[in-house]
């Protein structure tokens, strides 16, 4: 049993009218690992999570979550998962403690068990001091922590965290990271994030999603190796004609005008070739530099490849 993955997606697809939000995704998530779904706004991260926790029916395809089929066993799945939605989903007019207590009662805890569990979670998320405050008086970051605590109430084996560090200051972000790290090996966690740095710090595996499709998938280490292979050249010149840029684009997947100058990325940039090509358009190169790519550069080339006008 422990050999089977926690989540096995099989061609899972969601369309909203003409828009394909999630396009034929096949991902496998191991038990006990932290898996990050990394992608820009509108990539389909939330939609994927919503399908996996049975809030949305897939248009086609399926997934097995902890041995249950999302299309048939939604009741079973809802018993054993915990979800921290992207929006802060708390009852504003209740106190912090009442929010947690409500969740505990919904999951069937007795009054005494609920009380104990609530105290544990208040402690864990450092909200004890504000436990009797109405939630609407908490700061955004505190609400975010409560959002996570509410997902943890039933001590689920599988956690879905949709942008768990959204809107947190660096200190609060670290403390959520520490929390997630503490669960490593004990719980399976699928989280989404916009930040590569976050995916890198926390996860065993990362999948980069863009326009509903998985465009890269591997361990953070593997993705970094890809980064090492990539080269970036930045060129500044008076005026680079469209025709020149178009020609560059046919040879290199990533060509973009930035504040620094014209940026070209690729695995093996042919220095001479590029310079000759630009000169052949009668352009005088003023300044040229090679940049060491960062992980963020890898991520941005993955998600901008097609989108770069």
């Amino acid at each position, binding site marked *: 049993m422990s050999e089977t993955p926690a989540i096995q997606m099989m061609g899972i697809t969601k369309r909203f009218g003409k828009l394909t939000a999630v396009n034929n995704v096949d991902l496998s998530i191991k038990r006990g690992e932290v898996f990050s779904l990394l992608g820009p706004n509108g990539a389909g991260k939330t939609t994927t999570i919503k399908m996996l926790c*049975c809030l949305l029916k897939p248009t086609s395809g399926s997934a097995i979550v902890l041995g249950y089929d999302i299309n048939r066993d939604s009741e079973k799945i809802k018993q054993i998962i915990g979800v921290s939605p992207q929006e802060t989903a708390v009852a504003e007019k209740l106190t912090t403690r009442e929010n947690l207590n409500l969740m505990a009662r919904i999951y069937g805890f007795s009054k005494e068990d609920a009380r104990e569990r609530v105290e544990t979670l208040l402690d864990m998320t450092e909200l004890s001091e504000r436990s009797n405050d109405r939630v609407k008086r908490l700061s955004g970051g505190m609400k975010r922590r409560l959002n996570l605590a509410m997902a943890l109430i039933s001590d689920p084996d599988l956690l879905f965290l949709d942008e768990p560090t959204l809107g947190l200051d660096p200190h609060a972000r670290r403390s959520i990271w520490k929390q997630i790290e503490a669960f490593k090996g004990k719980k399976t966690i699928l989280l989404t994030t916009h930040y590569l740095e976050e995916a890198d710090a926390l996860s065993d595996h990362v999948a980069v999603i863009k326009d509903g499709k998985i465009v890269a998938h591997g361990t953070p280490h593997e993705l970094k190796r890809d980064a090492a292979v990539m080269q970036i050249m930045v060129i500044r010149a008076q005026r680079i004609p469209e025709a020149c840029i178009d020609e560059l684009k046919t040879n290199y997947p990533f060509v973009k005008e930035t504040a620094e100058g014209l940026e070209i990325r690729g695995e093996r940039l042919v220095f001479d070739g590029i310079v000759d090509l630009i000169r052949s358009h009668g352009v005088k190169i003023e300044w040229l530099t090679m940049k060491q790519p960062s992980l963020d550069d890898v991520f941005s080339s993955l998600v901008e490849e097609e989108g770069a006008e």
Partner: protein
Amino acid sequence: MRTVALAGRVFKEVYRDKAGITLGIIYPAMLMVIFMLIEGHVPVDIFEPINIMPGITVFSFAFLTMFSASMLSRDREKAFLIRLLTTPLKPGEFILAYSLPYFLIALLQTVVMFITGTLFGAPAGIGYITSLLFLLPTAMICIGIGMILGSLFAESALPAPGTITIVVIAFFSGAFADFKMIGGIVRTIALILPFSHAVDGIRSILAGNPLSEVMNSLYLVVAYALLFYLLGILFFRWRTRSV
């Protein structure tokens, strides 16, 4: 058990909303006092305690629509509903938890209105209990409308349909004016809608007439209650199917 837990939360949020409670309980009660004071000076039948008390009570239920609609659309917008939908709660449990608390509020409103009316001379008696036969389905209609509006509108868009509901109930229930003297189209609409039937039914019961005299009104009000509650459930289910 989990239904009770969620229902408790819904009740708490309504109960803690001071502006809401003022509007839904204190404001109608004060209106009633004012009308009954006027009656003391200028005797108008409709403002007699036995007449005004049923009308105002039904009118106060119009605020149940606002309470239930805004709770539902707020929970949708703030994603609290999403969170609840990821828990093992079943659809029926949701619907109960999002409607039962308002019956409790309706009971609270009734008690306050009836006590106020009694202080001004309405004849307390078994009729107060029998009136619930009309009051509960009337509350159910208002809660059903609330579930429909809450499923359809964002919280910021609610004031318009909410106010319309309150005005329609105030006007066509005959709580504040005897529409039978206006006649014509107004009277026809009032007779099609259930609210005037509820108010007249309670007036008749309080006047000591047997229930058999108002059975037709009662059937109509109950039919409306089932219809609107069912519609409320359908809209709610439709809304929660894709979040």
